[in-house]
């Protein structure tokens, strides 16, 4: 049984259908990357798993348990945490308060505490009492990841964590990934940076206009296949 599975997952914004029957799996210990052009449905896919868009119960399964119809607040307690696109830190909370609120609904026992997050991203300890709008983009992204880790997730969903950041900062953030995985989290990465995604992922799903034309292991996929799936040409 897969740790996380989607079965014929669909999603709508009003009358607009954003996802058409997406079938995916995530095995324990795996990192999968979701790539695709803007508007392909990548973020919608993560939102549907995290419960921000609710659908059929059986369309998302966690350890075989249907969770597709559950509310976001319940899903995080089951061990699925989302690092949302654009970081979306709580601006009236300090860095430390942002991390603490990440553990607010925590039901999962696990390794992540304030000290462990500070060990992963030491700069955050120095800035612990700062207001989040005063942080650099990279530091904000570290807070967003740390905040999600504080719920001790079994599945960490990351939406565009490299967006708008300098390459050296992206490298810093991705340097934390092995440790996050070593602590037992499996990871789903939505990434526009295909090179980065290919480097860290065990498997890749390429979305195109709400469908899934291409999946595979990075080493098995040719540049041309990805290009075709990405742009539909």
């Amino acid at each position, binding site marked *: 049984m897969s740790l996380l599975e989607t079965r014929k997952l669909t999603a709508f914004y009003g009358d607009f259908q954003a996802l058409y029957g997406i079938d995916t799996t995530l095995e324990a210990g795996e990192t999968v990357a979701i790539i695709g052009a803007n508007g392909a449905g990548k973020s919608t896919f993560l939102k549907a798993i*995290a*419960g*921000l868009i609710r659908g059929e119960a059986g369309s998302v399964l966690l350890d075989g348990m249907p969770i597709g119809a559950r*509310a*976001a*607040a319940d899903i*995080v*307690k089951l061990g699925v*945490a*989302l690092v*949302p696109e654009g970081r*979306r830190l*709580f*601006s*009236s*909370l300090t860095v430390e*308060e942002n991390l*603490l*609120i*990440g553990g*607010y*609904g*925590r*039901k999962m026992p696990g390794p992540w505490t304030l000290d462990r997050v500070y060990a992963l991203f030491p700069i955050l300890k120095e800035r612990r009492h700062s*207001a989040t*709008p005063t942080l650099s983009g990279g530091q904000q992204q570290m807070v967003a990841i740390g*905040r*999600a880790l504080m*719920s001790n997730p079994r599945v960490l969903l990351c939406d565009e964590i490299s967006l708008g950041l300098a390459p050296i900062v992206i490298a810093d953030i991705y340097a934390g990934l092995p440790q996050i995985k070593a602590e037992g989290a499996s990871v789903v990465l939505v990434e526009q940076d295909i090179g980065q995604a290919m480097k860290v992922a065990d498997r890749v799903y390429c979305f195109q206009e709400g469908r899934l034309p291409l999946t595979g292991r990075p080493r098995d996929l040719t540049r041309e296949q990805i290009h075709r799936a990405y742009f539909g040409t």
Partner: protein
Amino acid sequence: MTGWIDALIQGVLLGGLYALFAAGLSLMFGVMRLVNLAHGDLIVLAAFAILVVAGKLGLDPFVAVLLALPVLFVIGFALQYVLLNRTLGRDLLAPLLVTFGLSIIIQNGLLQLFSADSQRLRSGAIETASIPLGGGIAVGVVPLLTLLSAIAVIVLLNFIFYRTPIGRAFRATSDDLEVAQLMGVDIRRIFAVAMGIAFVVIAIAALYLGLRANFDPTIGPARLLYAFEAVIIGGLGSFWGTLAGGIVLGLAQTIGARIDPEWQILAGHLAFLVVLVIRPRGLFPRAQD
């Protein structure tokens, strides 16, 4: 000169009452973005509740309010959970209409039950007790207690908001409703708890409303207006600002009354307008609002 100093002191003390009216409103707006048009009527309703508890059990209003506090917390929680949560969303009109309807129901329900007669909470000698400050100036014990209670309420609300996990959840929810849910915050429950706390503040405001002056079922809307003005003068999202807003309003009213007794209410409204013109976001707005 003594008259003016007295007006200033009484203004600050009156500000304590307005801050109590406003603190619950400020909390509801701060967490739920709810503009509660029934706020004044809820204060009057709570005053009648204290009156009944005090009368039936033969208790002092200060004791009766202690009994009423947990009950009002539960009523506030239930009101939010069962009714008001359903009205919150993108459309601002729904909560306005529902709380406006609630206001009418409360006023007419109270008229039916208690008639239009003026009522007052009776607490014996303390009502008229005062502390002489010398120079012919004295402060009433009840007005002083009102201000001290207002300060205590603001300190307590600040403690809850800035020092406890549930306070973090209140602020996070206020910042970003969607992401707060990703943290495991059940927003329906959080909103209900916030309303429960607001009702506790309403009960304290009602105690002093009833001790300081007569009340009847129809005076709610005017109290709502003072509460709104205090919140907006102080700046949305800041409890200390709300206290300052209440004091500015109280000072304006007593100074106005000192100039001419007919100017009391008008001077308060004028001060509100002046603040709106000079500092449209209030005296102490929260940074990101």
